[in-house]
């Protein structure tokens, strides 16, 4: 299963990728913002994990653009972000995000959210 990890912080990308490896997912590619993520996304990507606040193109803009693409319409998207006010979470879900993790997170929470989307794939 191939993951696309999108975050402008190299530290966070590394933490997410290492967390994925720890819970058994060893195949991932990385992008530093929404623009790069759209360029890197293809049908081989089975799961997207994205930050919200990024330069050039935010996480919500990226997800909206992804949902417009034929190959990105149903891919599960998990947002991992520091934003945690109610309106922000609703905005992300309306943009097409399937599940939401608030930073800082633990690998256990990451695993739970990924499992929930793999077991019950996005519509």
């Amino acid at each position, binding site marked *: 299963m191939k993951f696309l990890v999108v975050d*402008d912080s190299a530290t966070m990308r590394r933490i997410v990728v290492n967390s994925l490896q720890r819970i058994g997912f060893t195949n991932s590619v990385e992008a530093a913002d929404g623009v790069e993520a759209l360029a890197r996304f293809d049908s081989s990507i089975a799961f997207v994990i994205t930050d919200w606040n990024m330069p050039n193109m935010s996480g919500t803009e990226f997800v909206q653009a992804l949902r417009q693409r034929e190959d990105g319409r149903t891919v599960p998207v998990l947002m991992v972000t520091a934003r945690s006010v109610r309106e922000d979470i609703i905005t992300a*879900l309306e943009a097409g*995000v399937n*599940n939401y993790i608030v930073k800082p997170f633990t690998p256990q929470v990451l695993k739970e959210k990924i499992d929930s989307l793999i077991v019950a794939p996005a519509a």
Partner: protein
Amino acid sequence: MANERASDLLYETASTLRLLDAELGELAPRRSAESTSASPSSLAASLAASDRVLPLLPALFLKAMGEVQAMLASIRTGRESIRAATSERLAHTNEKLDEVSSATGKAALDIMDALDRAIAKVDDLETEEALADRAKSAAIRTDLRDELFAVMGHMQFQDITSQQIMHVQSLLAEMEGRLTEISNLFGNQPGDTNEAPTDAVVGARKQKGAHSFDPNATLADAASRQALADSLVGRGTGNA
């Protein structure tokens, strides 16, 4: 707004003072002429001109004084609003920097604690009991990996604190913009070496990274914030 009003008043005052200067300038050569040539006809003409100009001066002085007073009042108002806004933002900046400081301190302590526990696990691995019992040593190694991985998790503080610092930078850029407005109000004097940054430069600084941070980013209450997200996701808000 206050600055624009002050600029208008400054312009009007300058116009009035120029007018005043012109009127006084008209008087000066005539007075000079009175003392030197003093021919009866020119003296009469000069007195006539003075009679025409002098009655205008009190009104001009009053107008100039009124405009200067209005300009000073406008500057005072502008100064007060800038002072209020700046002190509020400085307080917020201090608050954010305190948060960065405490988040960094907490993360450092968490990392130290995890490293202490990891070192203790390494010590446990070297005991005779662990060396003799493969299952026990395997369990200790698993615990050791968990501790080391926890250290990596604590590194998330870097992402949060960098967002907090970016927020502080944006507040400082905003204050810089306000100070630039004040500086521009008075205009640059010839020979000024410290040029105030232009609005475009200040704007660019504010915009730089404007989408890269969450002003409310925090390490606090992660569990309750996650619970809120879970409840909204569970409610099926949006496309989830």
